[in-house]
């Protein structure tokens, strides 16, 4: 009942309502722009959340995530260019419907499917996370240390074919987290006499650099994304599906809901995996599978429902354990940490108003997405049609100005540019960036709990094995890394296919695919 009270308070609070409207609007516009992922749209807003009340800040960020998942489908349907990765599956039938003059119907299906998915995901989020709060009683400093290690191990190991690179990125993230004043003794570390580094390198700066600046760098050499692909105005009027149509498409929606729920809760699963899985399953279970790829309504509503379910269920591991499973939830975690809130089992007891307020805010965001989705289409199309150089310039302007608003320091901007450079190089070398972010975000928690644990036992590391929860979590981390290593070794033993020199390749014996 207490939870419902907090959620209701959030739903009826004007600042939260404005945050939900602003976040969803920004999310839809950002998602509609190819190249701006939900995480980049969230990262660009992160500096502005600094001075906001904690609940308003987290609702704003979560609403961007919700809006961006729908926004991505707009260019996917209208110009065959998915605005976000998770909208890639929508292109297949959505664009076919657009070619048949049914683009408005496809947009309507995407909007309604997304809203239903978002609300279904929210129900799961609010019911799944609360029981996990009871775990708080079993968490001691060694367990928190082990939880952090497990989080980095999971995310590092998820990097397909790049286990070592994922783990290296996680370690580098933790190294960056050690810069600044030591949390226990107050000694300064790796500050090189720079007073700006005494408080450490703020993860907001690294996130902005790695997500936004690195993306701008990556796009600097690419072709224009909208040239020659103007949406037809006649087809771009949104048409909501009737209740009868929705009933007819119930199986596809149910598939989207179930798969979105499963994929969202698994770290690294993400909206794109859920969307493609839902698309395939919807086709398998459909009475008209032959229509898929030729403008099937089920082919649009299934992936769109799934990726909006993910936008809610992906928050489950973040809120319950403080371990984000995707870039977007890592930024949401950053939004919590900025305001001194540590997501995890204790958050439900220390700050229930934030947790349940977020649920209320997400409810508002989903309703707002439905209402705004109807009216915002025009501005989205206008924005998508802008030349890419203008958009890139505007985003860069927003980054350099937003960074300064955090601490009024140009040094921060230098850090962002440096982080952008590092992020770009990491991408090109095949290093995943999420483990670095996670290492940086969890670094303080890991170190402080590690040191606290050892203070209790006077330096005896056995404490991590004596504590049952800690032992269990560390064993899980070891098993995850072990299984990933085995998979990698097996992959290395597979024969290499060399398309450039097939004859030579067949003579060379066992080899591996280069990363």
């Amino acid at each position, binding site marked *: 009942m207490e939870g419902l009270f907090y959620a209701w308070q959030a739903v009826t609070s004007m600042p939260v309502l404005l945050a939900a409207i602003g976040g969803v609007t920004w999310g839809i516009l950002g998602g509609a722009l190819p190249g701006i992922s939900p995480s980049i749209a969230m990262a660009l807003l992160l500096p502005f959340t600094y001075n906001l009340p904690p609940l308003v800040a987290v609702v704003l960020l979560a609403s961007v995530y919700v809006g961006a998942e729908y926004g991505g489908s707009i260019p996917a349907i209208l110009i065959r260019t998915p605005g976000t990765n998770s909208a890639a599956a929508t292109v297949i039938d959505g664009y076919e419907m657009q070619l048949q003059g049914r683009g408005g119907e496809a947009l309507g299906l995407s909007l309604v499917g997304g809203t239903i998915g978002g609300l279904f995901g929210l129900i799961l989020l609010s019911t799944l996370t609360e029981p996990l709060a009871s775990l708080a009683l079993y968490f001691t400093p060694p367990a928190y240390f082990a939880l952090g290690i497990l989080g980095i191990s999971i995310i590092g190991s998820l990097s397909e074919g790049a286990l070592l690179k994922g783990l290296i990125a996680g370690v580098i993230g933790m190294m960056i987290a050690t810069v600044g004043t030591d949390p226990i003794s107050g000694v300064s*570390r790796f500050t090189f006499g720079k007073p700006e580094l005494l408080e450490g390198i703020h993860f907001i700066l690294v996130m902005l650099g790695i997500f936004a600046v690195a993306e701008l*760098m990556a796009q600097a050499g690419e072709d224009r994304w909208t040239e020659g692909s103007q949406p037809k105005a006649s087809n771009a009027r949104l048409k909501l599906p009737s209740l009868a149509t929705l009933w007819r498409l119930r199986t596809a929606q149910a598939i989207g809901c179930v798969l979105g729920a499963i994929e969202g809760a698994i770290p690294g699963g993400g909206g794109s995996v859920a969307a493609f899985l839902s698309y395939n399953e919807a086709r398998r279970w459909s009475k008209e599978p032959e229509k898929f790829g030729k403008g099937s309504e089920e082919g649009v509503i299934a992936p769109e429902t799934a990726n909006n379910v993910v936008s809610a269920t992906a928050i489950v591991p973040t809120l319950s354990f403080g371990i984000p499973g995707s870039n977007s939830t890592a930024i949401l975690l950053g939004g919590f940490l900025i305001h001194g809130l540590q997501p995890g089992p204790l958050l439900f007891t220390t700050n229930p108003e934030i947790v349940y307020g977020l649920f209320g805010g997400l409810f508002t965001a989903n309703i707002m997405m439905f209402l705004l989705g109807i009216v915002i289409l025009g501005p989205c199309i206008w924005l998508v049609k802008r030349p*890419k150089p203008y958009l890139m*310039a505007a985003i860069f302007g927003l980054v*350099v100005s937003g960074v300064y608003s955090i601490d009024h320091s140009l040094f921060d*901007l230098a850090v962002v540019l440096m982080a*952008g450079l590092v992020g770009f190089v990491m991408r090109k070398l095949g290093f995943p960036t999420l483990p670095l972010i996670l290492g940086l975000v969890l670094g303080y928690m890991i170190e402080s709990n590690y040191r606290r644990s050892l203070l209790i036992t006077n330096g005896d590391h056995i404490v991590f094995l004596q504590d049952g929860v800690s032992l269990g979590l560390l064993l899980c981390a070891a098993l995850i890394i072990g299984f990933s290593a085995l998979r990698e070794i097996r992959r290395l033993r597979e024969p290499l296919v060399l398309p450039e020199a097939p004859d030579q390749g067949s003579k060379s014996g066992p080899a591996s695919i280069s*990363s």
Partner: protein
Amino acid sequence: MRGNLVTGILLLIFSVVFWFGADAIPKSRLSGSVGADGLPKMLAIALAVLSAGLIAQTLLTMKAAVQTAGADLNARAEQRALYLRAFGMIAIGAGYLVLVPYLGYILTIALLLLTVALYNGKRPSVGLFLFAALGSVFFYVLFVQVLAVPLPAGFWPRLIG
């Protein structure tokens, strides 16, 4: 693959440097049984082990796939040109960083908008200059007037008196 090898070696060197950096952290009585250097040293060791693993993995892979080396020099040159273009964005950002304290926010942000758009393929036109001018005014109003962020004013206040 050569990139992986070079990265592995650089990371290995970095781990050694980081270890020595951690070793130089002053000792404090408040630190407890594990000093401020404890975790950084552990991380340096972890990075050294992982980068050694990356080097070994890359060497094994290279040995088997050596036939493809040098197969596409043109693609590599194109790739290099793309990287240089990308680094150009950082150079523009660095230019902004250097100029903003002197020229002030409104002028520098206009220059940044203009340069980024030009750099990414927009031809000089009235529309482009209008975009830079109006964009800088929009950013100025948003950040300085609405959000009250004290962005650098540059030489303008001195000029006015």
